């Protein structure tokens, strides 16, 4: 059972990087790809229906860490205390930017929360790099050092690359009525960028895969007893088809067509 849960853990981490990576990356690119308010609204609307389904991969990951590898959970989270706190604050601010940006009128309100969204996304990408570098180096006492921050910049670049590919894929080729007043002529044509998105997803997941490969023996040596792992399996595994089905449904429902405007 320990191998099963380790593989599940690795899949969740890699999946989080491949999926939430483009949301974070797009958040970082928001001021660059969306120069106008309408442009930013479109970019956010493109990723909005995916964010809730993507970020839960990390919530599940942290829960599994506690349930199946509790000793490591305590050691890693407390060993990287300031980094984890920074990651959480970035994550919360990114989410707040998304949830709040369209809940009131006024240009200043939208600009404020877009800035929060940008800063949270950038902070989230960088702290993920610092976390992975910190774990790989055996929890150094000062994780925000040069190698840590360098890893952060690498993750930031990968996520931005991935976010760019997602935006190109999602916003391409739909035969839609653009809004000429906002400078978007009516467009149509074939959908493009699906393969590029797949490739950028694999690239974004790379840091997670490398970290998991490096930590395999450490994790397997610190798994919870078989009784606990079996109990988890008996309860969680029957739901696996529902979990996968719900994720697939999100992509089928929101991968194309008009952009929902709630976020």
């Amino acid at each position, binding site marked *: 059972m320990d191998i099963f849960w380790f593989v599940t853990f690795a899949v969740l981490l890699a999946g989080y990087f491949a999926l939430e990576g483009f949301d974070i990356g797009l958040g970082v690119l928001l001021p660059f790809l969306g120069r106008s308010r309408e*442009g930013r609204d479109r970019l956010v609307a493109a990723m909005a229906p995916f964010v809730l389904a993507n970020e839960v991969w990390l*919530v599940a990951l942290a829960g599994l860490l506690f*349930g*199946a590898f509790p000793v490591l959970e305590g050691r890693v989270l407390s060993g990287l205390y300031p980094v984890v706190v920074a990651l959480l604050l970035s994550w*919360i601010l990114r989410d707040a930017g998304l949830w709040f940006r369209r809940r009131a009128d006024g240009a200043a309100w939208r600009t404020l929360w877009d800035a929060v969204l940008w800063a949270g996304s950038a902070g989230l990408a960088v702290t993920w790099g610092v976390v992975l570098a910190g774990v790989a180096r055996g929890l150094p006492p000062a994780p925000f050092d040069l190698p840590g921050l360098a890893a952060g910049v690498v993750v930031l670049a990968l996520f931005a690359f991935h976010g*760019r590919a997602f935006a190109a894929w999602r916003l391409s080729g739909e035969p*839609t009525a653009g809004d000429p007043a906002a400078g978007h002529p009516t*467009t149509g044509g074939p959908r493009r960028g699906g393969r590029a998105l797949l490739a950028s997803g694999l690239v974004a997941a790379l840091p997670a895969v490398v970290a998991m490969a490096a930590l395999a023996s450490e994790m397997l040596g610190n798994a919870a007893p078989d009784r606990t792992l079996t*109990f988890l399996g008996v309860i969680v595994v029957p739901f696996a088809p529902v*979990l996968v089905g719900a994720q697939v449904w999100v992509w089928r429902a929101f991968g194309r067509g008009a952009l929902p405007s709630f976020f």
Partner: protein
Amino acid sequence: MDVVGLARAQFAVTGSLHFLFVVLTLGLAPLVAIMNTRHVLSGNPLHERMTRFWGQIYVINYALGVFTGLVMEFQFGLSWSRLSHYAGDVFGAPLAMETMIAFFLESTFLGLWIFGWHRLPRGLHLACIWLVTVTAYASALFVLVANAFLQHPAGAVERGGRLALTDPGALFTNPTLVIALPHVIGAGLTTAGFTVIGASAYHLFRRTAEREFFVRSLRVGVVTAFVGTLVVVGFGYAQFEPVKTYQPGKFGGAVPGTALDAMMGIGQTLQLIAMFGLLPLLFRDLLARWRWLHPVLMLMTPLPFVAAVCGWLAREVGRQPWLVYGKLTVADALTPGLTRTDVTTSFAGFVTVLGLLALVDYALIARAVRRGPSRVALGAADDPAAPLPVPAPTF
């Protein structure tokens, strides 16, 4: 304050904030699901407007439940790593189930519901909000399984200085769980009921154009508050027996005692008001017509929230000094080597960020209530898709 005190305060503040939002989520979810069902079955536009208006309140409130919940989840490993070490083989399992099944599905289906208007077939869209409701209650179950284990560590034995799981079934039949769960569900319904009552009273008092909408909403709120208070008070009293058996003297201290008294005072008052005041006044919509009562109804809105936080204070402070009752003290569960600077910094960060966001969120809820059902973003028409607004830079 020492490091243990700071870490405890951090957990208490984030936990209390979390429950302020979660308690409304739990109560509003089934109401929105029922409204949505009535809309799908009847096709009545009023029910669609009710679904969208109360659904938007639900969704705005939900955001803060998530933000604070994230901090809760990670705080165990951050501040209480000796708990993970000592009891993680048992205590971690229900939390893993909560995140991997319940919250994972709740969040995914909520996304489908929020963004799926005009896109998913009506029946499937309706199924999403019901799945959100079911998974929200599953979340409550798993979290309370974990909490009940701290109150009364059933189903585990200590081996080699760590707790080992011996009886998984005992986690779910824990006597400090089975009565607390309906108590929490009753608290959620009470909170949602009085929130709907307060918001409806506001519009009726202001004599806005939405009279029919809020007369009907007021009825929904009163019935919900009546059911909720009945459940919460009934299962509140029923908890004294297991508490006396498993944690004698729990409410003896000043804080848990005062919190318990406040909660019970509010709960019983609200129950009496709902049963003998509000419910009978639904006759001929007297409650909606007696305008002088509406400010009172508005002022009652915060009371269930206060009671809910008091309830957790009584339950958790009354467990002190134990983290796992009779097995591990809070002081012993603290992460070794945790410095005052670490906790002070994180405490300040979490309180500032979550506190500000909570205030913004309540302001947004108040704004959504004030604007009324004619200006609701949830379920509005989509933006058209368009190519990237600027030429793509090359990497």
